[in-house]
C-alpha cells in the first residue's frame, strides 16, 4: 500500500544509498554519508601544513601595506604635482587607506593572533602603513598642500604695532 502510494507520488525515484541487496531504507543510518570514512585521519601531518598556511596568511596581511608602496609610487609619479581633482583624490585615498588600517589595528592584530611571530608581523604591518602615510604626506608636501612654509601662515600674521605717530604736510 505504501509502495503504491509512493509510486503515485513520484514518477520515479533513485536511492543512492541503497545497497544492491535492496536493504530497507532505515538500515543506511549506521553506515554514514557518501565519502564517510570509518577510520580516523592521521592528526599530526595535517595540523602541521595548516599552521604554515596560517603563518603565510598572517605574513600576507602584515606585508600588504608594504606591497602597496611600489604601486603607490608609480601612481604618484604618474599623477604629477598639479592640483586637480584626480591627483587630489588619489592622494586622499593614499592617505586614507593607511589611516583606516591603523585605526583598525586591533582587529588586524586579532587576526594575527594565531601567528607565532605576531609581534614582528604587527610591527611590519605598522611600518608598512606608516610608510604609506609618509608617502601620502610627501605627496601632499610635493603638491604644496601642507602648511609648512611661512607663506601658508601669512594671512594670520598681524600687522606690526605702530610705535610713532607722524602728521603734517605742506604748510597750509
Amino acid at each position, binding site marked *: 500500500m505504501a509502495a503504491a502510494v509512493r509510486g503515485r507520488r513520484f514518477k520515479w525515484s533513485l536511492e543512492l544509498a541503497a545497497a544492491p541487496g535492496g536493504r530497507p531504507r532505515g538500515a543506511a543510518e549506521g553506515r554514514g554519508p557518501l565519502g564517510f570514512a570509518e577510520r580516523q585521519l592521521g592528526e599530526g601531518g595535517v595540523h602541521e601544513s595548516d599552521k604554515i598556511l596560517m603563518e603565510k596568511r598572517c605574513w600576507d596581511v602584515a606585508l600588504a601595506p608594504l606591497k602597496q608602496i611600489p604601486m603607490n609610487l608609480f601612481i604618484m609619479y604618474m599623477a604629477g604635482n598639479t592640483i586637480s581633482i584626480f591627483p587630489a583624490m588619489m592622494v586622499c585615498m593614499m592617505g586614507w587607506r593607511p589611516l583606516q588600517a591603523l585605526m583598525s589595528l586591533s582587529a588586524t592584530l586579532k587576526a594575527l593572533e594565531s601567528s607565532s611571530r605576531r609581534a614582528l608581523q604587527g610591527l611590519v604591518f605598522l611600518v608598512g602603513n606608516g610608510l604609506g602615510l609618509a608617502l601620502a604626506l610627501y605627496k601632499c608636501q610635493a603638491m604644496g598642500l601642507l602648511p609648512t612654509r611661512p607663506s601658508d601662515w601669512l594671512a594670520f600674521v598681524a*600687522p606690526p604695532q605702530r610705535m610713532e605717530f*607722524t602728521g603734517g604736510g*605742506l604748510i597750509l
Partner: protein
Amino acid sequence: MAPPPCFEAPSAPRGLLGAPAGCPARCLHPAGGAHAGFPRRQRRGRPFGFEAPSAPGARPGAAMAAGLWALLLLPLAAAVYEDQVGKFDWRQQYVGKLKFASLEASQGSKKLIVATEKNVVAALNSRSGEILWRHVDKGTPEGAIDAMMIHGQDAITVSNAGRILRSWETNIGGLNWEMSLDTGSFQVASLVGLQDVVKYVAVLKKAAISLHYLSNGHQKWVEHLPESESTQYQLLYSHGTGVIHVLGIVPQSHLNILTFSVEDGEITKQVIRVAAPWLKSLNGVCSVVGEAVLVCMDMGTHSLYVCSLETEQEMKQIPLQSLDLEFADGFQPRILATQPNVISPSRTQFFLQLSPSHFSLLQYKHGLLSHLRDFQQVPEINVLKHVRHSKTYIFLYCYWGLQPCYVFSSLFQKPGSSDDLHESLTCSNQTYNINLYLVETGQRLLDTTITFTLEQSGAKPQQLYIQVFLKKDDSVGYRALVQTEDHMLIFLQQPGKVVWSREESLAEVVSLEMVDLPLTGAQAELEGEFGKKADGLLGMFLKRLSSQLILLQAWTAHLWKMFYDARKPRSQIKNEINIDNLARDEFNLQKMMVMVTASGKLFGIESSSGTILWKQYLRNVKPGSSFKLMVQRTTAHFPHPPQCTLLVKDRETKMSFLYVFNPIFGKRSQVAPPVLKRPILQTLLLPIMDQDYAKVLLLIDDEYKVTAFPATKNVLRQLEEIAHSIFFYLVDAEQGKLSGFRLKKDLTTEESWEVIIPTEVQRIVTVKGKRSSEHVHSQGRVMGDRSVLYKSLNPNLLAVVTESTDTHHERTFIGIYLIDGVTGRIIHSSVQKKAKGPVHMVHSENWVVYQYWNTKARRNEFTVLELYEGTEQYNATAFSSLDRPILPQVLQQSYIFPSAISAMEATITERGITSRHLLIGLPSGAILSLPKALLDPRRPEIPTEQSREENLIPYSPDVQIHAERFINYNQTISRMRGIYTAPSGLESTCLVVAYGLDIYQTRVYPSKQFDVLKDDYDYVLISSVLFGLVFATMITKRLAQVKLLNRAWR
C-alpha cells in the same frame, strides 16, 4: 578735443574684451546722453565682453595666449549692466558762479542763458533749474568768457581774452559759428544795429575795432585805432544811427572820441579831443545816456561832467551841490545807465551810486539835469530794459531792503564738562525785498514786491537778474534770479515763491569726508542701554524688554512697508531721504558726505541719492582760504554725537580758526574750539581719545608750539605719556625745506631733522603720506617658490615729488624722494630725466604710483615703486622708524599710458583683503578702474614657471584703456579735480566720489562682489527647487513606507 578713448577699445589685441559681432564697440561720448556706454543686459547672462574669451580664427598658439590672458584678466574686468544704470550711482552737474546771465524777456520762454566764472556757457530750464545744455571750455584763463550778448535765439560770447568769438544757438546749444580774432587785449564788445535791425557785433580791443556779421561771424571790417599806445579805448556806443562811437582816454589829460561808420569802418568825423585832466578811467565813472551824451563823475570836484558825443567838444560841469547830493568819502562813485536796445538811444535816466548802499536816480534831458528819487540802504540796483508792446518804454529797477540782523547771545552748557560756557552769535533769518519802480518818475509799482528769506546761513545776495514780462491784463510781472555770496542761485516768482534753487558752490569742492550714518532710533536705543550705567537688575530687565519691544515694532513696520511697496510698481517707490529718517543700512553702504567748498559753504549730502540734507555757510571765510577737514568722533560712540572739525586758514592774513560741527545734522557743535592766536601750519589727528571718545587733534603753529583740542586734563596726561612718540613734519615748498619736529612733554617741539631741496634747481610740488585709515591685510607676497617677500609697510613714509625749475624739454626732470617722516632718512630717491609734470601720485601700502609726461618720447608714463623688506621680517610685532637698520628693497617699473590724467586715487576697503584698483580720472571725464596688478614692478619680461605660479602678468610696456573698465559708463565728469574713496561695511565694496565741475558717486567692486549675492540672483528658481526637493523627499518617504508595508503583508 582728444579722440575719445573708445577708439582704442576695438583694437584690443587679446581678443578678450573685443565685443563679439553684433554688439557695437561701446563708445563713450562725453556729451552723448542717449547713447549708452554699457553692455546690454541679458537675463542671468554676463556682460558681452566676457562671452568671447578668445578671438575667433586665431592661430592655436595665439588662442592659447589669448586664453591665458583671459584667465588673467577675467576677474579684473568689470562693467555695469543696463538695468543697473543709476541704481548705485548718481551725477550732479553744475555750472559755477555766474558771470553773465540773460533771462529771456518773453513770458513763454523757459531758458536762462548763463556764462560763468568756471568758463561754462549753459542754458538752464527756468521752470526746474535743470541744465538744458552746457558747454565747458578750458579751465585755464584761455577759456575765460569775457562778454556775453544775446540776440534773438543766439548767444554771442567772447572768450580767451578776446581771441575767440562764438555764436550759440540757445535752443539746443549748438555752435552757430566760431571766429578767431586778432590778438590784443580785449576791452568791450557790443551788438551794433542799423536802422532797426541788429546785424553786427563790434569788438573793441586795445588797438583795433572790428565788426562782424551776426549771421556767420565773418569780419565786415577792422580798423586800427589812432594813438593806441597812449590812449586806452574803453567804451563803445551805438544806437542804430549808422555810426559807432569809440571813447578812449589818455589818463589825466583828455578823452578821444572816434566815430566810425558802420558801413565801411571809415572815421566819419575828425578825432575829437575833449580835455578831461581829472579823469583816470572810463569804466564805471562814465556812461552814455540819452542820445549819445557822455556823463562822467568827478570825485575831486564833486560834480558831474556832461558832453554830447556828436555835437560838443567841451565838457559841461554840473556841481552835485546843485542837486543836493553828496557822496561818501573814499567811495568811488559809479554811474549806471542802460540802453534798452542797441538800435535805440540810451535812457535819459541814470543812477548815480553815491555810497555802497545809496543810489540816486537822475535824469538828463534837453540839457537839463534833474533829480528824481533817492534810494537809501539798497545794496544792489539792477536796471532793466523792457519793451512794452505799445512802444512806450517802462524802465524798472528793483532793490532789496535789508532788515537788521540782530544778534543774540546764549549760554550753552556742554554736557560732560562742568564750567565750559560759551556764547554763540546767530543771525536771524534775513528778509529781502525786490521792488519795481517806474524809471521815468521814480514811482513804485504796486503789487510788485518779491519778499524772500535766505536761510540761517547769513549769505547776502550778490547779484540779481530780472525777467520781466507783461501779463495778460497788461500788468507787469517778473521773475528774479538771485545769486548769493555762497554761490547759490535762487529763482523767485511773485510774491516770493522760490521756484528752484541751485547750489553752484558745489562746482568747486575742496575737501570731502565720508561719515557713517547713525544707527536707527531703535538700534540706538538698544545701544544706549549698554552705554549707560547700570541701575539695578529690575530696571535693566525692564529696559531690555522695552528696547526689544521697540525693535519688534520697528521690524513689523518694516515688514508692513515691504508689503505695501511690493504692490506698487517699482518705479513708483520713492525712498525719500530726509534728515529725520536717516539711518545706517545693513552694509553701511550709505554714508554722509561732508563737502567743503571753496566759497566756504559746507554741505551734508546723503551718498546713495545725492540729496543735500544740510548746508552751512561760513561767512568769515575769504576766497582762496585753505581748508582741512577732520573727523574727530565717528557715529560709533552713541550717545556722543559725531564730530567733525574744519580748519580754515586765510591765505592773506594767515590766521586760522576751527569750526566744529556735527556732520550728520550740520549743526555747530557746542564744544568750544580753542582760539588760535598764531597761524597754524599743520595738524595731526592722533588715535588717542579723550573720555568722550573724541580723537585728539594737535595743531602746530608758526612758533612750533602745539595746541591740543580737546585739551582736557585726561588728554594732556595721555599726551605727556606718549609725547616721545609724536612727530611732525612740515614741508615748505617755497624754501624747499622739509623739517621734522619732535613733541616734548610741555607741548613744545624741537626740530629733529631737516632736508633741503634747493629751490634753484627743483621745487617741491606734492607730498603724500599714507591714509591713516588704511588696513593692509597681507604683510607680504607669496612667491612662486612659496617663500614670502615681506612688504615694507612704513606708516611714516612720505613720498615727495619735485619738478625742475628748468622746463626746457631736454633738461627738465622730476625727482621722487621717499623720506621717513620720523627720522628724515631718505629711503629712496630717484631723478627721472626728460620728464615733466603735472605729476599725479598715489601712495598706499608699500607702493607709490606716479604719472608724468615724458618729453623725449612725448607720451604719458606711469612709474610704480614698490618697497619690500625681503624674505625675513626685521621686527614682526612692532614698527619703529627709529629702529630700522636695513633699508628696504625698491623695485621699479614704468609703463606707457595712452592718455593724460586729471585725478588719481586707489580704492580702499574695510579690511584690505580685496585687491586694489587705481581709479584714474581722464580728461575726457571718464574714470578708469585699473587693476594695481597691471602696475606691478615684479611683472617679468620673460615669464618663468615661478612667475606663472605667482600669477604675474608678463610685462608689456603699454597699459591700455578699455571702455569696459570705465566705472562711470557715459556719466562723464567735467573737469575732474579729485577722486575720494571710502570703505563700506562690505569688504568687496568701495565707495567712490569724483568731483570737479560735476559730482559723481558710485560703488566699485575691485574683486567682484564675492560677499553678496548677485543683483539678479534667482531667488524664485532656487527656492522653488529647494521646496520641490523637500516636497519630493516627503512624497518618496511616504511611498517607500507604503511599499514596505505591502511587502511585509505579502
